[in-house]
């Protein structure tokens, strides 16, 4: 090629272009790699092929699979428009080209995206399935419970005591803090109103009944749902992902005996005890606030409490314990078993477990209120 025919020169970082009358010469230069691919692509897209293209690779420094794939794309495009001649490539580059050509499949990766109605139907159906599974789970737990009592030697004392410690004893500090604060707040808020009527001493009736009957059980249950319900879901869910549950099943260890019942029973024992503890600390909180705000001495407060707080309120609060505990443990374990094979579902199920159990605890509490009021207790 003498200089005679040259019409146009274009220099680009990765492409040097010589446009002659009858042919275009493309010199590939520099690094044709992944990071530079978008820039090279833009330069290539601008080329208007004439009658003939000579594509020269003798000045290329490095060439990775993105570079080769890009070359392939434009080589094929130019070939449909004119004559293309490739020069100056090394043996390795040619082998790389062949390797990638062999693996360059036309078949598309199938799409996994789904339409709106499909997803809606799917989630409704999934909800229905979860409901059925929960019924199945409840039945299973009931049967295992009965079997426990028929064959008490299966009773897993060690696990149960372990979980009483984990879910009960270790929760005492946080429950003490929350119920003390709630007791205080109740007293403070009502103190002002009561003082207006000179009914200061009724603070004891108000705090005593509301704490023992309603507040202590609810607060304890909510703290335990957040602490232990979520832990049950996460533990059992992780065991599902690592296939520990499958391993247990194949060894003949029924997960209901080994994982779920011990947790449920432990919580049913621990929660009433925690409620009792919360009663005491909550009343201490309101006693503290009453003495600060209304000058009711501790002695006065306790005397009045013994007079007005009938023991049935205390028992109603305690009785709620096992019911709340059963809801929390069952929902926690059930959600754990629903975990599928991906890690994201642990997060989803843990959230769902806490939200569900708090909701059902409150619903159950409302049910208690209605029933007990109907009975006149």
């Amino acid at each position, binding site marked *: 090629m003498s200089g005679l025919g040259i019409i146009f020169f274009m220099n680009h970082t990765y492409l040097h272009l010589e446009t002659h009358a009858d042919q275009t010469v493309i010199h590939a230069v520099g690094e044709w790699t992944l990071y530079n691919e978008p820039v090279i692509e833009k330069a290539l897209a601008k080329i208007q092929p004439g009658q003939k293209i000579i594509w020269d690779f003798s000045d290329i420094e490095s060439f990775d*699979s993105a570079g080769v794939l890009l070359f392939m794309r434009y080589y094929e495009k130019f070939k449909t428009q004119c004559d293309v001649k490739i020069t100056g490539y090394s043996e390795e580059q040619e082998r790389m080209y062949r390797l990638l050509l062999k693996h360059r499949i036309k078949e598309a990766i199938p799409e996994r995206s789904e339409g709106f109605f499909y997803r809606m139907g799917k989630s409704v159906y999934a909800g229905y399935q979860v409901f059925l599974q929960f019924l199945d789970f409840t039945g299973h737990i009931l049967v295992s419970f009965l079997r426990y009592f028929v064959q008490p030697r299966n009773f897993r004392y060690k696990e149960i005591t372990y979980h009483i410690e984990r879910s009960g004893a270790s929760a005492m500090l946080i429950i003490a803090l929350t119920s003390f604060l709630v007791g205080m707040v109740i007293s403070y808020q009502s103190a002002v109103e009561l003082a207006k009527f000179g009914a200061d001493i009724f603070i004891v009736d108000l705090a005593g009944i509301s704490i023992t009957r309603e507040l202590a059980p609810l607060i304890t249950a909510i703290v335990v749902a957040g602490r232990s319900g979520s832990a049950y879901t996460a533990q059992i869910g992780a065991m599902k992902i690592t296939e520990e549950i499958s391993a247990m099943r194949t060894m003949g260890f029924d997960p209901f005996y080994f994982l779920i019942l011990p947790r449920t029973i432990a919580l049913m024992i621990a929660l009433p005890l925690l409620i009792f503890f919360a009663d005491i600390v909550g009343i201490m909180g309101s006693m503290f606030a009453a003495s600060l705000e209304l000058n009711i001495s501790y002695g006065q407060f306790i005397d009045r409490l013994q007079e007005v707080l009938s023991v049935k309120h205390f028992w109603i609060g305690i009785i709620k314990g096992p019911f709340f505990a059963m809801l929390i443990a069952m929902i926690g374990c059930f959600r754990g078993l629903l975990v599928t094979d991906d890690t994201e579902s642990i997060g989803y199920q843990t959230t769902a477990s806490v939200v569900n159990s708090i909701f059902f605890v409150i619903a159950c509490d409302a049910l208690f209120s209605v029933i007990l009021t109907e009975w006149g207790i």
Partner: protein
Amino acid sequence: MPGMQKVIEAKDIVTSFGETVIHDRLSLFVNKGEIYGILGESGAGKTLLLKEMIMLLKPTAGEMWVLGHKLSEIGYQDAQMLRRQWGVLFQFGALFTSLTVAENIALQLKEYTHIDPRMCDEIVKTKISMVGLPARAGALYPSELSGGMIKRAALARALAMDPKLLFLDEPTSGLDPIGARNFDALILELRELLGVTVVMITHDLDSIYSIVDRFSVLADKHVVAEGTLENVLQSDHPFVEKFFKNEYAKKRLEKRVEADVQ
């Protein structure tokens, strides 16, 4: 070979957990463009050594050099740049379970480069095919794959960025024998075409005989034998004796020699 460039160098590495010492002043080096094997009994500390090379674990004492960086003094920026230059295949795949295979492979491409979706898709498909998976496997989630497919998908992810350095933890374990040999062939090809340096932990006699250039044998907290197959075979350490000098291994070796002669 003269003029060889060291890509990885471990100097007097000590690894211990409390009282338990796993590596006791262990040293080795890997040359550029080499396929380097690490061999040793289960629990010899191979995976831990690999983790120290890829900055997942700091050695208790000693120095690790990778691509010219001293890992104990590396800054955040350099460390991030270094991490883009290698690909790692974990022993159990470690694919992201909430992403499909194709999304797993595309992750770094999308994060670190500005390539358009079409090129990304093309690269992903090529890698999927290279490791011997069908295109439709790209749409599957890790939980829908078999053990061997997980290995392949994880290799495809490790190869996504055309790394200069490839770390493989027992790549052929869990593959069928034919798949394992294809795996070996692919690694060899990548080394020749892309000039990748490969560090692989392996128990696979065939891989050691056919693709590994040099390797070290880990036992008793040290490298007890090191070098080419011929070098290592001269060692009389009990593990080397047990691993290479049994009937099965000898037969395999004879076959390889015959194959070389032909």
